[in-house]
């Protein structure tokens, strides 16, 4: 708990430098390519197109869970791309910045924050694209859209917690990165991004357990906001469960981070 307070304080005080470094990283990542950061957007759009053809038209005949498949897919996959980017970069956030950060006076805890800052711009651009498609399909802004102010913090806090934990575990446990990467690819299919978990003939308990996973909850929040017009307090148990999981990950992640950060250079 005290470790968590310390980490949060450090992150709060060093936010500007984390932001500057994140922007620098984004700029330098695509510096060698002709199209530059266009790839950041081209790749998701290519996947969205493919999923739409294969699943939307092939599997679901255009409609799923009472809404056009393209809208159902977009509301899920746009936050998913943020989650995926933050997750993958988060795994190596400390180990890749270690050389640079140890030589400065900045605390190591800003490293797990940087993946979020690197990904957030693409998320906003894709969200604007998504909103335009929604409006084109006749889904006009409503009072429920305010809930995005709850959904985005959910996503950010959850990803920070996971990155804080993962970035330490990657260094401490040599096999962890491979494990987490393969697990994450599985979670993609269980998070109801392209395949509707509800409609299958799975036992109810299994579906409920799948829906309890934090990523599913986040995606569900976005869909509730834009498509189904439900408030988050209408499913109190799931909301409570999500925050309990996130809090525990935060506490555990912060403790491991503080405990091991002095030894990171020894262990690399």
């Amino acid at each position, binding site marked *: *708990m*005290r*470790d968590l307070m310390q980490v949060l304080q450090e992150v709060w005080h060093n936010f500007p*430098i984390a932001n*500057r*470094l994140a922007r*620098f990283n984004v700029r*330098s990542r695509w*510096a060698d390519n002709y199209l530059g950061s266009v790839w950041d957007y081209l790749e998701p759009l290519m996947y969205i197109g493919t999923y739409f053809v294969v699943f939307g038209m092939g599997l679901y005949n255009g409609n799923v869970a009472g809404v056009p498949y393209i809208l159902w897919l977009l509301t899920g996959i746009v936050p998913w791309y943020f989650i995926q980017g933050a997750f993958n970069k988060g795994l190596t956030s400390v180990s890749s910045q270690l*050389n*640079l*950060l*140890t*030589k*400065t*006076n*900045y605390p190591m805890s800003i490293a797990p924050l940087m993946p979020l800052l690197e990904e957030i711009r693409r998320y906003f651009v894709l969200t604007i694209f998504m909103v335009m498609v929604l409006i084109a399909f006749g889904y006009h802004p409503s009072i429920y859209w305010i809930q995005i102010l709850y959904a985005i913090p959910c996503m950010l806090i959850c990803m920070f917690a996971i990155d804080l934990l993962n970035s330490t575990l990657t260094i*401490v*446990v*040599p096999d962890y990165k491979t494990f987490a990467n393969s697990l994450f690819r599985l979670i993609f299919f269980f998070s109801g991004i392209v395949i509707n978990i509800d409609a299958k003939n799975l*036992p*109810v*308990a299994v579906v*409920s*357990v799948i*829906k*309890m996973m934090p990523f599913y909850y986040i995606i569900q929040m976005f869909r509730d906001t834009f498509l189904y017009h439900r408030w988050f307090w209408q499913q109190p*148990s*799931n909301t*409570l*469960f999500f925050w*309990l*999981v996130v*809090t*525990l990950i935060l*506490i*555990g992640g912060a*403790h491991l981070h*503080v*405990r*091991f950060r*002095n*030894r990171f*250079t*020894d*262990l*690399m």
Partner: protein
Amino acid sequence: MTDSDKKIKVQASFVTKRYEMAPTNADKMKAALSNKTFPSFWALRGVSFTAYEGETIAVVGTNGSGKSTLMKVMSGIIPATSGEMKVNGAVSLIAINAGLRGNMSGRENIRLKGLMMGMSNQEIDQKMDDIIAFSELGDFIDQQVKNYSSGMKSKLGFSISVHADPDILIIDEALSVGDATFNRKSLEKIREFQAQGKTIFFVSHDLQQVREMADRVLWLHFGKVRMFGPTNEVMDHYDEFVNEYKQLSQSEQAQYRNELRDAQEQFTLDDLYHETVSDVASTQQAKQLKKEIYYEQHPSKMARWEKWIIVVLACLMILVGDKIALNLGFKTIVEKPATLVTGWTPKKLHALDERHAKETKEKAALHKQQQNGKRKESE
């Protein structure tokens, strides 16, 4: 001016650094987590010294005497195993190709390091031309650093570090990697820093350079301070030692090295304490000494109340998770708490599925009815 008037910049008290000689990283981890011990090697064995503001201190010693380790501990790259290293001010470490990224151009590396040192983008823009001019890289500045020669890399690293305006400058053998003209320029820059009253540490094998530049010399000998004092005094002794050492035959040299290496492997903190405690008179001083020698930055441990909160949260999480998975209402749980466990029998799970299927069917039927009703209305 006496020592007490000057501001202390760096103070080391009984700093040690132990390396575990574990074969793999996984083994290192095991050693960190459990009490499993591997053979250890003490790169530093209780180094103590005090450096004041405006001093230039040279660190000399044979290869493997712990010079680089000490510099790394001082700049905060690696933690000390025990003892304390107090540093007042911003430290800038210049080592051969320190922290440059190969897949970026020199210009980008300047920006990145500048950001890391806390400069804003405007400040970096202002200093950019100076840094590039100082580095003598010319058009190569826009090439990727991985294509640089080692001389170019160290020139770039040196230029960036000296332009960051550090309080304490630590130069690890980076003064003698450039060519003669660049070295002269670097020395001038160092003199400039000296004139500005900055504290400088430098590691060098160039004994002539040490005599020219340093105010005091720290002589490290296999992880211990052999001598620390005014330049000429220490350097005379050091020269003497080097000459004596050179006159030994090859096998004698090897034997000498091995003996000291063994001592570095067998070293314990208790040894250090017993060695030093004989110099102090009172028991109070001995106590203080003990505290300083065994000082360790303990990894943070959770307090009991923190553990309790975690246990409570975890139990709550399992409870809520169970409730969601079995689709139980709050009322059912209060009335029949046993359902939280008995609900997991295959029979009950099957019943849950059937109930759910029925509900979905009813819902679908209701939905159809409503739609039909709407259609009729519109007709």
